[in-house]
Structure formats: C-alpha cells, structure tokens
C-alpha cells in the first residue's frame, strides 16, 4: 500500500508543475491554520478568509520554503502575521463596537454569568492590550503549546529573546487582568488580589 506523501515531496511536485497536489497540503493543514487564526483573535466569520489568504501566500512563495524546518513552522509564521494584520485593521471597530461600555472604564462586569465564549472574547480584548511583540510568543507558547525553540523559529528570534518576552508578556497580562478584567483572573489569584 502506498504511504501518504510527505510535505516536502508534495512541495517538490507542486514546484515541478503539478499544482493540483497543493490541495493535499491545504487539506492537511487547514484546520491548524484556522484554529491558530481563531486563537490569535481573528473573528470566527473571518477565519476562512485568513486561511485562504495564508495558503495562497504559501503557494506563491513555495519556492522559498526551507525543508530543514517543518512546514507547520512556516504556516504558523504566516498565520501569526496574517492574524496580527487582520486584528490591526479591525482594531478601531473592535474598540468602538464590541467592547461593552462597562468594560471600557474598568468597572466590574457581569462576567460570572457569561459563558466560555464570552470569556474567550474578553481574553482576546485583554490580549489586545499586550503589545504585539509580546503577544505573539505568549500565544504560540501557552495557547498553541509550542516549545520555546519552535516559537523562536516561527518568529525568527533568538531563544533568549523569546524567553524574556514571555516573561514580560505574562507579567503584563497579569497586570492588565488585575486592572481591567478582574473576572478573568484564576480563582486563587482573585482572592489574593482582593
């Protein structure tokens, strides 16, 4: 029985002119890209657009792919950039439309009654206050669950830089949650702050 072709084999075939083989790569990674985009703060209704954009970009630059790194590393990099771009372009709308008035001034909100989705939305808002260069490593390491060396490869930065950015990102996020989104703090931490 013939085994599944590897990513590198498929890429070579596409570069040799068999463009239709790219579809296998898209099917293989579309869930990873869509989920990463959603977790990075792209609205659910825009995830498909972003995934489409990411794969088209990958196709156009396929000749630049370096086989010594996993294809997923490259996909993560493009997805992170696309998600950040999308968030940047939507920032104004998000601030003016989606954030409820009671959160804008940091007053307590009825979060206790909110479900998981509401919590995720608030988390995205909180993360939106963390500068991008801290946010990306934080998301890749603690949401995608990637090791530091993989995060370093994705963001093309030294591991030491990633570690220090993670340290700073966590501290910033904690401070943001304490000040503006106290309901997001873990139960034990909330008690400590009080």
């Amino acid at each position, binding site marked *: 029985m013939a085994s599944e072709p590897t990513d590198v084999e498929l890429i070579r075939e596409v570069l040799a002119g068999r463009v239709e083989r790219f*579809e296998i790569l*898209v099917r293989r990674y579309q869930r990873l890209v869509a989920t990463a985009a*959603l977790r990075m703060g792209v609205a659910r209704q825009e995830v498909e657009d972003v995934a489409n954009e990411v794969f088209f970009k990958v196709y156009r630059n396929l000749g630049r792919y370096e086989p010594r790194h996993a294809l997923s590393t490259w996909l993560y990099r493009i997805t992170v950039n696309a998600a950040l771009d999308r968030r940047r372009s939507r920032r104004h709308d998000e601030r003016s439309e989606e954030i409820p008035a009671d959160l804008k001034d940091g007053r307590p909100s009825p979060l206790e009654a909110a479900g998981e989705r509401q919590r995720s939305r608030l988390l*995205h808002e909180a993360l939106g206050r963390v500068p991008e260069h801290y946010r990306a490593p934080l998301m890749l390491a603690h*949401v995608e669950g990637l090791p530091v060396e993989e995060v370093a490869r994705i963001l093309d930065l030294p591991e030491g830089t990633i570690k220090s950015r993670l340290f700073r990102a966590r*501290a910033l*996020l904690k401070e943001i949650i304490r000040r503006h989104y106290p309901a997001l703090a*873990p139960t034990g931490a909330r008690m400590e702050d009080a």
Partner: protein
Amino acid sequence: MTIRRPIFRAAPDPGEAWARQVLTPLRRLRADCDVAAAVMARIAATAAGASEARPLSPRQARLAWAAGFLAGSVALGLVTSALRGAAGQGQAVHEVLGLLTSLGRVAVLLGRFLVSAYGRCLEIAAPVARAVWALFEVLTPILRGAGMAASACGVLSILISFYIFTHARAAASAPGGGRRS
C-alpha cells in the same frame, strides 16, 4: 512639574502555570473550515490571469507583426482574385497591382533612406560621443581639483576679510577714532 509614570510597573512573572490556566478558554477554541476548493480556484484564476496579462516579448511581438502582415497580404490577394472574377477581365487587377508595386517601391526607397540616415547619424554621433566621454574623463579630476582650490580660496578670503574687519574695528575704537595725529 508633572512626572509621567509608565502605565504598568515591572511586575513579577506569574509563571507558566498561571498563563496556562488563564489562557485555557483560548486553548479550547477550535475552528474547522474547508478552504481547499477556494484556494485551488484562486490559484487557477491567478494562473489564467497571469498568462492573459503577460506582456509579449520583443521576439513574440515581431512574430505577431509578421503574421499580421502575411494575413493582410493573403486577404488582399483574395480580394483581388474576387475583383478579378467579378470584373471578368484583368483591367482592375492590373491597376491595383500597379498601385501596390508603386507603393512597394516607395516603401523600399523610404526604408533605404531611413537606414542610411540612421547609419550616417551613428557615423557622426559615435566619434563625437566618444570624444565627449574622453574629455569628461580627463576633465573630471581637473574639475575636482579646481573645485577644491575654489573652496580653499573662499575660506581664505573669509579669513582675510575677518582679519581686516577685526583690525579696522580695533583701530576705530582707539582714542582719536584711529586717526594718526
């Protein structure tokens, strides 16, 4: 005076476990979409668009011109044959052919004239251009030297003026208005 404080003071790292716990709702998010067909359609559309919009190379343009000329000649031949058939005699065709021959001669003469004019222009312009270039090469260091000398002279003249001016002021402020008694 107001001192601007940073928005957030340096806080201690709450640790990886804290971050994992806080970000749990995001880790649970899943998105499933099928973009394969859309991506492949976009790739196909781009490929088709690229081949349509691709500009012709000079060689292709020449070939296209030759093919157009050939097609035009064939069309003219067909029209001529039709005219000949319609007229039943060769008078009209002779006139058309005579006109075309004259036009051809004129075109050939014009072409020769243009080629010779171009050649003559090139004959005259090439040595002139070469001479100008040689002159430019020779003059460049001289001009550079002259420029430096001019700037040095300028600086010197400023210094001399300054000296004279200072000296004149000193003399004018002396008792008796600097006049010798």
